[in-house]
């Protein structure tokens, strides 16, 4: 499980092992339960060819979509499987969207029109050599990781001896994505009965989710919190 923003910016190497650019974004199909990364948007430092056609002049700092078949992800390293001159011209498919550009920071709405919050990050994991989307991070860890406050977080995490948990809305709840409004619609009503959680340590490895804990409810409204506290205090055995 890894935040997409930690993968964006990673270096991309040619099949000869030379640095050619960095990861700019990921392309996914929005209509799958656990969408796999179909392609990687690579920011090339310099290209001589586009769509196998030689260019009159070298193009610098150019973003190209590289299909997953032509890229390899191993040991936190993206490598192109063939020469840059063999890269085809690729476009976004109809149901394809970009992780960083389109999903991150969008508003998440339920079918009841209740806004849950904004997507702090997209959680991605690796399975059988492919990157797959796990869900939308909406909790505090996603924010902290992006604010550059990871070191204090790490210290608190270790000091406490137990890990912070991050609330993640599984992609299976995603019903639609509206690019114009910049919002993601979930196929649930007011409440989501289950919320997946990943912990701080888990958010740093690329491995698939291990023991998913389930909690209820996901949308913690202030009175829910108060109600839960009262419920818990009621449950205490009386002496």
């Amino acid at each position, binding site marked *: 499980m890894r935040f997409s923003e930690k993968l964006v910016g990673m270096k991309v190497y040619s099949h000869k092992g030379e640095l050619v650019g960095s990861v700019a974004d990921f392309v996914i199909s929005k209509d799958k339960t656990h969408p796999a990364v179909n392609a990687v948007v690579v920011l090339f430092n310099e290209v001589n060819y586009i769509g196998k056609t030689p260019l009159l002049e070298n193009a610098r700092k150019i973003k190209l979509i590289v299909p997953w078949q032509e890229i390899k992800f191993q040991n936190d390293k993206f490598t192109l499987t063939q020469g840059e001159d063999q890269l085809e011209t690729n476009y976004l498919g109809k149901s394809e969207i970009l992780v960083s550009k389109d999903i991150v*920071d969008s*508003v998440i709405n339920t079918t009841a029109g209740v*806004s*849950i*919050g*904004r997507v702090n990050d997209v959680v991605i994991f690796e399975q059988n050599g492919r990157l797959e989307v796990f869900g939308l991070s909406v909790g505090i860890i996603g924010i902290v990781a*992006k604010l550059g406050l990871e070191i204090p977080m790490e210290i608190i995490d270790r000091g406490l001896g137990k890990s912070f948990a991050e609330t993640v809305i599984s992609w299976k709840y995603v019903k639609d994505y509206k690019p114009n409004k910049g919002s993601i619609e979930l196929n649930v009503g007011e409440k989501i009965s289950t919320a997946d959680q990943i912990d701080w340590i888990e958010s740093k490895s690329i491995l698939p989710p291990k023991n998913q804990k389930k909690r209820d409810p996901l949308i913690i409204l202030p009175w829910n919190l108060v109600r839960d506290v009262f419920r818990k205090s009621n449950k205490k055995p009386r002496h």
Partner: protein
Amino acid sequence: MRFFFTRFRAQNGRKLISFPRLHWWQLGLFFVVMGPGIITGVVDNDIGGIATYSSAGASYGYQLLWVLLLSTIALAIIQEMNARMGAVTGKGLAALIRESFGIRIAFYSLIALLIANVGNIMAEFAGIAAGGEIFGIPRIVSIPIAILLVTYIALYSNYHKVERILLIFCLFYLAYVFAGFLAKPDWALALNNSIKPTMDLKDVGLVTMAITIIGTTIAPWMQFYQQAAVAEKKILLKDYQYEKWDTYVGSFLTNFVAFFIVVATAATLYKNGILVETAGDAAKALIPIAGRFAGSLFAFGLINAGLMSAIVLPASTAYSLSEGFGWDAGIDKKFKEAPRFYIILVTLIVFGGLSILWSKIDLIKIMIWSQTINGILLPLILILMLIIVNNKSIMGKHTNTKFQNIITIATAGGVIILTAALVIFTIIGK
């Protein structure tokens, strides 16, 4: 004016300026759309603003009136961009910043806005307390009433009702105009100084005051509030021309009222060599010189300004935070529909009021701090706004034109340099 242009056209033989025919229904539409711009402009003369203008008038007389003209133009240019962004996207500024620049920039700028606004909200309640005390109402009575009244208006009405109430508050700002007349100022000198810039650059105090006036007039909460209000009022692009005029009228009103505050204090306090630091002191000092009635008008204006800003500033903060984090927001929504928005709103009102009531805080220090934070935040917000307003994928064909960009970049640049100078002066001054 019309006669002049008509004649000019006749001599020249070509049409120089054409006057569009205004229909009565257009005026009606303007009255429907007006609100966000006028309210933002008028609330800009909050307790901090009144204190600054009073202090400017008391310390330097009519000398700095021309700065008001400059700040009117700068304010109008900046707020117009917000109105346009709100009408085109239907989103508030905080939402656009989050979506365009990510959470890091959005989070830190919103935290800065929150801190600066908390300081300002405390000042608003201090103004209400000071105004009340002039009428013999102790703060232990006035503050709880103010808290309850403001919370009631914010909680139990829809947006249109709140807007109408705020527009009525705007009318009461006329108190300052009357106070200005009662002070019997030297109108010829005042008008002359309003148009003719005079500045002794060696006088550090004068330069700082000039910058402070601009810094007080253009504050980050205004950009957040007006755009959020335009979005909440669902002002569409087709009605944008009216919203533009709403903005211009608002910017004019800001400095129209400010003019009379400066004039009132210049004609009385400056003449008698009385210096004031807070708006309450100015009202108290006015009574023996300009008479009980003028002083009372000034104090009444203070209470009015305090109450109005005590609604608008917490609302601006609540709108911005909710938009930034993607929570439901809006005065039109019920508490259950937008709980976080209302919790922020009410917490800020109650905290701001109670802090004045119970603790012996150094309000001037808090104001200086919040002004410094505003000064640091404003350049960032202006730069982000310029980037967003020029982004075709957000603004479509309503991005800034080249001419607009020259004007806005020059204005923003000027404001950035002045606010940076103000921050430096404040830090050195300490």
